[in-house]
């Protein structure tokens, strides 16, 4: 415990560069910052040297996040970090005006060394992030993790899923090729059709016509507002977790299953694997890159993004009045948010078992509507 180096900065240290830094910085306090991001769950004694703290914490029992259904949250965090890195690299060269957007994207993809690769990684990362966040929400629902005292966690998960979807939606316009342009046009039609909320939302997105106003707003939302909100909710999630504790549901048994040190290594291995999978997908299955967006020519077979297919089928292609299907969508969204408030009883039609059944039915309807949205344009005779 007694370290002579700590008392006298002039004497050489036995601890190498960590000791050197230790004399000049309060490393332990900086290290304790990690507790805000859920990596460390024990209290950190900021008066002790960092080596001791880390060694002690390394042997602390922590819950295993890298196995079982809990891996989804960790995967989402890793993917988000990866998206941040590739996104910053893309932003170095991107210019958000209708005249320059496509040109600059093409420069990135075609002319810069490995630019196509960064672009494809960002594209695939977005695809996987949306899918994983959706799976995470389904898992939360299946295990009933929206019930007291985890209501706030559920809300935060729903809002984070919504943020990821919005990130994907705003990001795909930025490419400004014909597909991204027209799928945004279709997507905005869906947004507009939702009563009350839709027009307000669409106003913030920049209106009905996809032009330079919409582009710059999508740019600001994609680079600044939505990632900042996502980070805020990430912190919010960990803060809540520390209060209500980890879930005991699911495959993993309750309580700690590994040490902090092992957990860190497992997370590193998982990150390497995620990176490798995205690299492989980007290399073997690159997304096609179409010509520049032309507001006067709609290419054939343009659909909204896949997560918007169900609302698209309901609002644009069904014979129901738009306000009714819009109200239905709004009710579904609100129902998802208010779920914890009307599932308090253990018996009756809101009991956990029944809720699973309702969930499966709702998911089935969603999948069927998505399939309808996907097929309805293909079956239509092009006019």
């Amino acid at each position, binding site marked *: 415990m007694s370290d002579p180096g700590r008392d006298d900065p002039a004497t050489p240290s036995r601890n190498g560069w960590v000791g050197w830094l230790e004399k000049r910085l309060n490393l332990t306090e900086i290290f304790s910052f990690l507790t805000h991001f859920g990596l460390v769950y024990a209290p950190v004694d900021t008066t002790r040297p960092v080596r001791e703290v880390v060694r002690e914490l*390394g*042997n602390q029992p922590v819950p295993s996040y890298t196995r079982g259904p809990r891996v989804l949250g960790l995967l989402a965090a890793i993917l988000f970090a990866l998206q941040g890195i590739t996104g910053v690299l893309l932003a170095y060269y991107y210019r958000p005006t209708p005249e320059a957007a496509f040109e600059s994207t*093409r420069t990135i*993809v*075609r*002319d810069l060394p490995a630019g*196509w690769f960064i672009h494809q990684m960002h594209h695939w990362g977005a695809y996987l992030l949306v899918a994983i966040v959706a799976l995470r929400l389904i898992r939360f629902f299946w295990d009933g993790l929206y019930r007291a005292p985890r209501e706030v966690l559920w809300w935060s998960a729903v809002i984070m899923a919504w943020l990821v979807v919005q990130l994907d939606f705003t990001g795909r316009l930025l490419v400004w090729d014909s597909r991204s342009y027209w799928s945004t046009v279709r997507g905005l039609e869906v947004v507009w059709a939702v009563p009350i909320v839709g027009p307000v939302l669409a106003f913030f997105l920049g209106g009905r016509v996809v032009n330079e106003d919409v582009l710059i707003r999508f740019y600001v939302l994609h680079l600044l507002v939505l990632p900042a909100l996502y980070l805020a909710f990430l912190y919010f999630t960990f803060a809540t977790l520390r209060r209500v504790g980890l879930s005991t549901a699911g495959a993993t048994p309750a309580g700690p299953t590994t*040490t902090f*040190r*092992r957990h860190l*290594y*497992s997370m*590193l*291995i998982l990150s*390497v*694997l995620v990176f*490798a999978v995205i*690299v*492989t997908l980007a*290399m*073997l299955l*690159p997304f*096609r*890159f*179409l*010509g520049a967006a032309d507001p006067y020519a709609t290419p054939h077979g343009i659909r909204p993004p896949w997560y918007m297919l169900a609302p698209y089928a309901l609002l644009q292609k069904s014979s129901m009045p738009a306000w009714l299907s819009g109200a239905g969508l709004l009710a579904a969204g609100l129902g998802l948010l208010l779920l914890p408030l009307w599932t308090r009883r253990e018996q009756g039609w809101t009991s956990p078992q029944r809720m699973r059944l309702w969930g499966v039915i709702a998911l089935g309807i969603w999948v069927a509507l998505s399939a309808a949205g996907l097929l309805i344009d293909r079956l239509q005779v092009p006019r």
Partner: protein
Amino acid sequence: MRTVPRAWWCLAPLVAAPLAAVLLAPALTAAQPRAIPQPATAPAAASAAAGRCGVCHPAERVLFDKSGHAQEAVHCTSCHGGNDRSVDLAVAHGAGFRGRPSRRDIPGLCASCHSNEDRMRAYNLPVDQYALYQTSGHGRRLAKGDLSVAVCSDCHGAHDILPPSDPASRVFELNIPKTCGTCHGDSATMKARNRPDVFRQYMSSIHAHQLFDQGNRRSPTCVSCHGVHGAAPPAVGDVGKVCGQCHTAERRYFVAGPHRDGLLRAGRSECASCHGDHGIEGARPQRLSTLCAQCHGAGSSQAALGGALWTEYRGAAQEIDKAVALIDRAEAVPIQTEDYRARLEEARTYLREALPAAHSVQRETVEGFTLRARSVSSEIEHEIYAKLGNLRTRKFVLLVFWFYVLVTIVVLRRFRDRGARVK
């Protein structure tokens, strides 16, 4: 408390009435018949140009007031004589009244002004129309006493004469075929004179298609080949000169080849022998393989040459199509393709020039272009294949990458498990 809703219901009509009024107002106004727009004042019977003639001849006056002549101090009396200051028939149709000019006199009457250089100078108009007309098929027949041929007023109109630049004019470029077709498209008249119905032939031609459907204003109308006022069919030996005004490359190669002298000796026209005259079709390169046999006979060496030319052309065109498909594939990757597209245009230009060159019926001349088109296309293909080949190396790099990923994971696992053992 139960009376409160009732009280509200009593108020309902008060709310509903203005609401209904607001909602129904557009429908009510829409139901009223719209007033037909009327000019501010009815036209006066007399006008500056037509004088008082319009009092009795309103239809002619309306037409004449719209014409170019009305603006230029040409009056009714300029052609018809008489006095336009009076509505008294004896005075108006009195001294010097000419009435309706006979068809025979119309060209001379128009020429009395239009052949006068002093009068026409201010308008920068030519004065040779009358002289040209007398040399034309129309003019010569008129001189022989055939009064049914076209005179000035048949093409330009009598009262409503408009300049050729006015789209409403009968002699506006796009209206010329229809104007000529008034007589030359009238099958009964033409059959009586033993003339073909050239109007319908022309309207089915590539020239009419270009002019009317594609908006190509450089495509010829009747007057481009036959002349305007001196309209006459070109002589047999002159057809090539007429076509060569626009189709310069074709004529250059044709003149250099053996066909020109042979056709002249046989008394056949240069271009029309193969292409026809009024009903000219668009260029169909595959006709190279069939057309030669029509004169030279199937199995002749000339027919074989035609087949060889078509094979050359088709081969080069296919090579270009292959290059286009490859460029599209490369663009979706994406690989930089602007340079390839520009070079492809070069190849297309060579291929396009092979068609005029085919008029020389010399294999070396045609091959000079098709081989160049082929070589540019295959160069492009070669280079794109080299770049697409880089994609294959990417996949090889991926294998190496996964090897290192697996090594990294194994190392990390060992670090993790060693820590556990130490503990």
